């Protein structure tokens, strides 16, 4: 897979606990048209897995369940390999105050 600055930013965001698509947009400041295709590629390559949040939350919020993405071991390994090349990403992606864990559906 071709590693670009944007892909590393998304990896970094996922590593820091941003799991929903729009949250990753906010964290990386990348447009949605960039982030989602990256997530699709990550999933195809086995770097992330995706799940749907619990139906109960969705029903409560009167919307469909949100989809969240979690880094796999391969994803973490790739992030570690690229850490030296893209040091600045650590500074760009803000740390989450608390890592929200989505409830599995």
């Amino acid at each position, binding site marked *: 897979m071709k590693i670009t600055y944007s892909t590393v930013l998304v990896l970094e965001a996922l590593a820091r606990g941003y799991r*929903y*698509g*729009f949250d990753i*947009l906010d964290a990386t400041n990348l*447009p*949605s*048209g*960039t*982030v*989602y*295709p990256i997530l*699709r590629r990550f999933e*195809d390559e086995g770097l992330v897995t995706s799940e749907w949040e619990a139906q109960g939350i*969705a029903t409560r*919020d*009167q*919307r*469909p*369940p*949100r*989809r969240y993405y979690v880094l796999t071991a391969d994803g973490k390994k790739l992030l570690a390999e690229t850490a030296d090349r893209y040091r600045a990403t650590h500074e760009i992606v803000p740390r989450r105050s608390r890592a929200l864990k989505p409830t599995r559906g």
Partner: protein
Amino acid sequence: MVERHSDPLPLRMSLAILHAASRVVPRALRDKWMREWEAEVRHRARVLHRHAKPQWQEQVHLMKQSSGAFADAAFLRRQLIAHYFTAAFRHFRAHKVVSGVNVMCLAMGLTCFIVAWATTAYFAQADARQANASRLYIVIMSDASSPNAPVPVVSPRLLAEHLVADFPELDAVARATPPTEIPVSVDDRSLFADAVFADPPLLEMFELPMLHAAAREASTLLEAPSSAIVSRSFALQLFGTDRVVGRTVRLAGGESVTINGVVGAIPQPSQLSTAESAGALPFGLRFDILVSSDVEPARDSTRRWTSRGYYTYVMLPSDGSFAVDAFNDQLDAFAGRNVSVDDASDLTFRARPAAEVTQLWLDQLVGANATGISSTVVLMILGALVLLVACFNYANLATAQSLTHAREIAVRRMLGAERHQIFVQYLVEGFVLTLLALAVAVACMGATILVVRPAVFAAIAGVLLPMKQLWVFLAALTVGVTLCSTAYPALVLCRVPPAAAHRARAQDRARSFSSLLVGLQFAFSGFLLVAVFVTIAQSTALERAITNPGGDPIVVIVNSLREAALDRELLKTELAGQTGVSGVSSIDFIPWGTSFRFADLSPSEDPSAAQVNSSQEIVDPSFFDTMGIPIVAGRVFDPARAADTADVDAWLRGSGAADYNVVIDRAMVRRMGFGSPDNALGKVIYRPVSDSGSTPPQRLRVIGVVEDFVLQPLNFGAPMFYLMNPDAAVVPVVRIAKENVATALARIDETWARLAPDVPLRRRFANEQYEAAYGLIGVIDKVFATLGGLACVIATMGLMGISLHTMRRRTKEIAVRKVNGATARQVLLMLLADFSKPIVVANLAVWPIAWLVMRGYLSLFAVRSGLSWMPFAASLMIALGVAWVAIGAQIARAARASPTLALRRD
């Protein structure tokens, strides 16, 4: 997606964006994709609302985030397409042989079609690079009273003079003669050159790349009397240098002309070309020397409207004040005003773009006047036939292959693959294969031309590659071929139900379709094979008629005696006494050449009676004896009888009170309705010279009838009549003894060198002269042979592929038959009959069309091979023979196979 009326406006707008973007997402993923995006958007809208953001801010934010949905959707669509392509390549790798066969067959078909298109596109680009291209026209002349009269492109000398007088709006009018071979001499050196005699304004119309010129303005180089321009190669040949401006050369008739310019390679395609021009147009003005028209030998002293001999070009004004439509409208009145009543009766003139000259000539050759089908259409149809054979071949193989993979498809359907996905995937496979075939076709064509004629490659590539139409054509061709070849197999496959892949009905339908496609393939190739045999037979018949195989060869002295300033009687006497020379005669124009001489004749004095367009020859008395034309009835010309010598000038002027003694051929006897040759003797044939009958018709009294003979190979079925006038017959023809050819030729050369030391002898055998003039007929033969051969090869390859699949499918059936007592021979015959049926039916079905088309083709020729059953039978035999050889081994193997093994395996 559920849109609620209670949703705030920003959310509703974002959801609308998502809805639009979802149309791009592959259908299988659409619901899931929509849920994901809608959930995020709704969640974000809720957060924004909770933070009490102003609505416009909320709107901007949501729309910004939602707009990325299009990129995401496009990404998923791209991924799916990439998957289709990957699957297509995987399929090719898995079925290398079948895919390779398909690519090669399609490449052959595409090559034929692309060549047809590129040829017409190249011709149509003639002089497009000229600054005046859009306002250059050629005025063509049609004669309604002689619809069969050839070459409307060539017009009379009078036309240009009257156009200048009647249309002062025109920027320029210029005539040019088609190229003629004449000797050109300087000091003691003499060479034959292709000469074009042109009016000076021709150089205003066509800009030539001058290497050296006497004046800065190239357009003025022919304005001085007796001036000329030569090509660089001719200057080098004649003078040894191209710095020849100001030098003088002597033409055949003794006229001296001054060279005012030396022209370099003229960019092609163009009306004008020289020996250096690669990719020159057929029928263009190809010259070694371009001479001002004031020194043109008087080719048309009669000043009749029906005497054709010139290309007449006009240039419309650059400011658009006089458009071509207005010009054409006024040309009708122009004809009425200028064409005299006593001259030709029903002439019409039209201005056509100068770039169409080649096409107009080719239209004439394919008989477009009679059929209404232009040469361009004929060419495209021929190319399309082979391409269709290739497409059907692909469709057939793909359908057969898909049926053997029905189980695989059924499994995929059960795993969730939708019909449209299977359909699109197979279309993509076809598209990739077509692209590969296109690449192979273009690469092979390009490489072949590059290796054989690099300069032609550069000329063609330089013209075609920058054309937008080329790329549009290739794109449309790829899509068209993909749909034509893939749509049906893709449809068959996508309709295979998951649980019923093995049902017989679908297979039966596909099997009938397969037979239909095999039939169509062999119908097209059968048609082309018939065309191959007919054209070959026709060429052979024509060549036999001209070259008289087994008899004494005929040599034509291309030099005109008048231009060589040689006394006819002296030359005749000198040649007649030479070893090996068995006869000497002469005729008015070079026989078997491209000069056409026609007159409309009628058996009735009534000017309104039907007239027969007839071919006219003026000969000397010994012509029939020299050429070996047998006399059928009466006598031929006798120089001792004064009445036999025709007053040619009076004849051409349309006057002459006395009867002209004439010898006619058998065809004329038939066309005039004389019954028999003997009955024709003494009869009078009339040549009306005015519609009104105000001037009495010219009268031709038949003194003899001779066998049909060919002097104008493409006389469009016109019968012939001969007039005698030794002074007008200025082209010598010599019959030489076949046992003594070399000696006779040496004697002819010696005699000529002695009598006309300043003029080099140019002589040709009859067949050489025919080939020089009608090389295009040979090209037509080759085109048919190539197309027919290719179509047959493609169809056979397809049949081989089909037979492979069929044998595999019918293994069990054959085994059961054998168990029930059928012998291997019976099985073999049954399978051969099964495969032969569509071939035989297809050939029989196409024969009537082939017969009609070939009859039309043969009607162009004076001597016809006749349309027998042989080409049809031969075409069927070849198709069957090739098919049997191709599938014989497989069938034999299947017939011999052990039934026990086959049934056990099943």
